[in-house]
């Protein structure tokens, strides 16, 4: 029978996130994968700017804060200096897909041997819910009060699709965290990405679709239904690139 114990890579305190925020779940999945691979002493967490940086409050291990959007550049330096360590960045969509777009594409194109965990909640959570590059068409935010209009602001950026067309990345996948199945798949995907990194295969990218109850203006349970009807059909979950193949 299954049993579950809180991973040791999390500090004994509640997270810094709002009630129902799936960032907490994403952080815990990373901690679970690290515990399963017995890498707690070996892992280095490169955090970005935004709500994703709040995972420092729950992360029990080595970490470093990068400038806004520059986590892949910092992780590149760390991994090149310390090739034996498990290096991963934890970034949100405002950080990775907006200001850090050049960094992530360059790091992916160079095939740097680290893992990017990309939590996509379709908004700038920490600064008050402005429109992010990944905000859905028609989705309301403080800077698009009538819903995102593609005529003036374009369409949501699909990062997995963008990165999967590059030659170097070895594993690119997207998972939705709004259902038990999605969470189980995400857990396996994160573990696989870490294993590929430890085997020295190259760049791995895992996108996790999350929510933002506070800035979407919904109850936590309502955000899960919103994700089902709006987010998941646009950002389709799945494995976009898997050079190594095999089961996951």
């Amino acid at each position, binding site marked *: *029978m*299954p*049993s*579950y*114990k*809180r*991973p040791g890579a*999390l500090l004994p*305190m*509640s*997270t810094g*996130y*709002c*009630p*129902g*925020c*799936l*960032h*907490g*779940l994403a952080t*815990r999945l990373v*901690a679970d994968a690290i515990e399963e691979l017995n890498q707690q002493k070996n892992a280095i967490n490169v955090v970005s700017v935004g709500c994703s940086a709040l995972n420092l409050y729950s992360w029990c291990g080595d970490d470093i804060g990068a400038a806004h959007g520059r986590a892949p550049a910092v992780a590149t330096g760390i991994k090149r200096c310390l090739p034996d360590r498990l290096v991963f960045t934890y970034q949100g969509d405002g950080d990775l897909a907006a200001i850090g777009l050049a960094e992530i594409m360059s790091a992916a194109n160079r095939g740097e041997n680290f893992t990017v965990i990309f939590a996509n909640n379709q908004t700038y959570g920490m600064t008050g819910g402005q429109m992010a590059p990944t905000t859905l068409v028609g989705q309301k935010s403080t800077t698009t009060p009538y819903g995102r209009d593609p005529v003036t602001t374009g369409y949501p950026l699909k990062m997995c699709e963008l990165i999967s067309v590059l030659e170097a990345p070895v594993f690119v996948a997207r998972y939705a965290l709004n*259902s*038990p199945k999605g*969470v*189980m798949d995400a857990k396996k995907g994160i573990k696989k990405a870490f294993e590929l990194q430890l085997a020295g295969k190259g760049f791995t990218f895992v996108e996790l679709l999350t929510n933002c*109850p506070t800035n979407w203006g919904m109850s*936590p*349970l309502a955000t*899960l239904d919103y994700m089902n009807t709006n987010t998941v059909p646009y950002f389709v979950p799945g494995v976009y690139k898997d050079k190594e193949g095999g089961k996951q």
Partner: protein
Amino acid sequence: MITINELYCKGCGYCIKFCPRHILEMGKERSQKGHFYPVNINEEACTSCAICALMCPEAAIEVTAKEG
């Protein structure tokens, strides 16, 4: 058997929504932090499937497998 740490719980209700046996319910008391937290209303029916723990964003739920 499940153990809910009410100091971590923020009362989002994901565990209640996804429990396949519907044995969790939002409690009437508030925790020290001021959140309502779920209580186990039918411990006998729990199969230790750990889906509540899987969906908990705060890792507030620990599950120990039942004997036998």
